[in-house]
C-alpha cells in the first residue's frame, strides 16, 4: 500500500503575526515554521497503513521555498520513506487551485493507493486542496476522516460532519483528508532523525509542472489586502462579590444591551 502525503509548512500557531510592507502578506522574519498539524494526522495514518500491511512506501510532498525541505525532513524522521520537494521559486503566494494542480501533476506520474492531505492547512484555513486534487485526477475522496478501516482494495472511512459521522465506503486509489481524532501522531525518534538524513528528497520545479495559476496574473483567488482584525471593545467587568447579583447583572446586560438572549 503506497501513500503520497501532501504537507504544508506553515507558521507555528503561536507566531505573532505582523503584516509585511506590501500590505498583503505576513512579515516572515522571526516566524517559526511547522508541519501543519492536520498533515501530521495524515502522515501518521499513512505510516500505520504501511505497518499494518507490512509493505509499501510513504512519500511526502510539498510545494514551497527552500525552507519547506525542513518540513519534509521532519516527516522522513517520523517514518516517511522518501520525499518530493516542489520548488516554488520566486512565487510567494499560490492559490488553492494552483497548489492542487502542482500536487496533481506530481501524483499523476505515480501509483499511490492513498493520497493523503490534512483537512485544512492552518494559516490559510481553506480546506480546498485535497478535494481539488481528487477532482483533477478523477479520483473519489473522503474528507474529514476520523477513523479508517482497511479493506481489500477499498476502505471504510468515518467522516466527521455536524453532530454525526458519515460512514463512507470508498475504493482505492482515493484522496483522503485527515481530521483530528484520526490518530495520535508519533514523535520522531533519535534513530529516525539520524536515518532521515540518508533518505532521498527528489526535487521538481513548480515552473515545470504546467500550472498557469502560479503566475499572479492568472490566480483564481487573490489576497488583495491583509490587516489585523479590529480590536474588540474593552471587556466590561462585572463585580462578583455577590455571585447571585453578578449573575443577574450579566443576564440583564445580555438581554437589554447585547440582546442575545
Amino acid at each position, binding site marked *: 500500500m503506497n501513500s503520497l502525503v501532501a504537507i504544508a509548512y506553515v507558521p507555528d500557531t503561536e507566531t505573532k503575526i505582523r503584516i509585511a510592507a506590501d500590505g498583503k502578506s505576513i512579515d516572515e522574519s522571526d516566524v517559526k515554521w511547522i508541519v501543519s498539524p492536520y498533515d501530521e494526522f495524515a502522515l501518521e495514518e499513512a505510516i500505520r497503513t504501511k505497518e499494518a500491511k507490512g509493505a509499501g512506501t510513504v512519500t511526502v510532498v510539498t510545494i514551497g521555498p527552500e525552507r519547506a525541505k525542513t518540513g519534509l525532513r521532519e516527516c522522513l524522521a517520523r517514518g516517511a520513506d522518501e520525499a518530493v520537494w516542489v520548488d516554488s521559486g520566486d512565487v510567494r503566494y499560490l492559490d488553492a487551485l494552483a497548489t492542487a494542480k502542482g500536487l496533481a501533476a506530481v501524483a499523476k506520474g505515480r501509483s499511490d493507493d492513498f493520497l493523503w492531505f490534512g483537512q485544512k492547512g492552518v494559516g490559510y484555513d481553506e480546506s480546498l486542496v485535497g478535494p481539488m486534487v481528487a477532482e483533477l485526477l478523477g479520483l473519489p475522496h473522503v474528507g474529514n476522516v476520523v477513523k479508517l478501516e482497511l479493506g481489500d482494495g477499498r476502505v471504510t472511512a468515518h467522516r466527521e460532519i455536524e453532530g454525526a459521522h458519515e460512514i463512507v465506503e470508498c475504493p482505492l486509489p482515493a484522496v483522503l483528508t485527515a481530521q483530528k481524532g484520526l490518530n495520535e501522531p508519533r514523535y520522531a525518534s533519535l534513530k529516525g532523525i539520524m536515518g532521515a538524513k540518508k533518505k532521498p528528497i527528489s526535487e521538481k520545479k513548480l515552473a515545470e509542472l504546467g500550472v498557469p495559476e502560479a503566475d499572479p496574473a492568472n490566480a483564481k*483567488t487573490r489576497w488583495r489586502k491583509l490587516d489585523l482584525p479590529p480590536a474588540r471593545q474593552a471587556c466590561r467587568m462585572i463585580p462578583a462579590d455577590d455571585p447571585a447579583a*453578578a449573575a443577574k447583572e450579566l*443576564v440583564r446586560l445580555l438581554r437589554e444591551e447585547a440582546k442575545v438572549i
Partner: protein
Amino acid sequence: MKFLVFIEQRGGKTRKASLEALSLARTLSGGPAAAVIAGKGVSALAKDLGPYGAGTVYVADRDELELYSNKGYVGALDAAAKEEKPDAVLIAATAMGKDIAPRFAARHDVSVLADVMELRLEGDRLVGSRPVYSGKARAEVDCGAAALQIATTRPNVFPAESRPGAEPRVVTLELGEISPRARVVRIEASETKELDVAEADVIVSGGRGIKGPENWPVIRDLQEALGAALGASRAVVDAGWIDHQHQVGQTGKVVSPSLYVACGISGAIQHLAGMGTSKVIVALNKDPEAPIFKVATYGIVGDLFQVVPEVAKAVRAAKAE
C-alpha cells in the same frame, strides 16, 4: 449579476446556513437568486426557499441522492450551473459545503473564497473578508482572473431573512446515472444527539477550570438553561474529559455564535482562533489576567462553581418572565 446558491438538506430539513447564503445572494444581486437542492423527496422543500430569496429552484430529487455523496451532489450543482449559467455560486461552509465547493471549483478551473465572513460586490466582482492565521489577521480576497466566482459563507454570520413574495419557479434537473464511488453507507449520530457547536447560535464552553470531567453537570446546567451547544477547550479534550467533537479552536471547530460563554477557559491563542469572531463573548474565570478577558464583551472574575449555577438560575428566571 446571476447567483446560484447550493441549498443543503439532511433528512428533509433545510440547513439554516444555506438560507443565510441564499439571503446574502438576494442582498448582493438586489433581486431573486437561483437555488439548487439535492436529495430524496426534496421537491416539497423548493417552495420554502422563495421567502429567503429564491426566484428559481433547481431540484435534483432522486432515490440515489438520499444519502450524501460528493459525486452526486456536485453533479446536481453542476447540472443547475449548466442551466442557470451563474456569475457566482454561494455555498454554506458546512461539512457538506466544504466537501462540495472545492470539487465543483476544480471542475470549472477556478478556486473558492473559503469561509468568508463578509462579502460585497465591486461592480460584478465579489470581494470577501476571511480570518487567516488563527484569526490573528484577516485577508481581503477576490477571485482574480476567474470567470466563475465561488464563495463559501461561514454559518451564523449572515442573516437569513424571510420576506413574503412570489413562489419560486421550480425546475427539475435531468440527471444521468448516479453511481458514486465514495458512498455513504450509514450515518452514526453521536450517542447524545447533541446540537453541534458548528451550527449553534449559543455555545457554553468548559475548560481546565472545571477541574475534572465529574463537574460537567455544572456547565451542562447553564448550557441547558440557554438552549446552547456544549463546547470545550483543547486542554480538556486532550485530557480525555470530553470528545473531540466539542472542541473549539485551531484544531477543533471554528465558530461564530451570537453568544459564547467561556467557563474556566484561560484563552490560549488556539482557542481564541476558534471563537474570537463570536458576536458576544462572556468570560467566567477566576484569574483576572486570563487572556480570555481581552476578547470578552462581559467578564466575571470568580469561582465558576459559584458563579455558573447563579447565571443558570438568572437565565431561567429571565426566560420565565
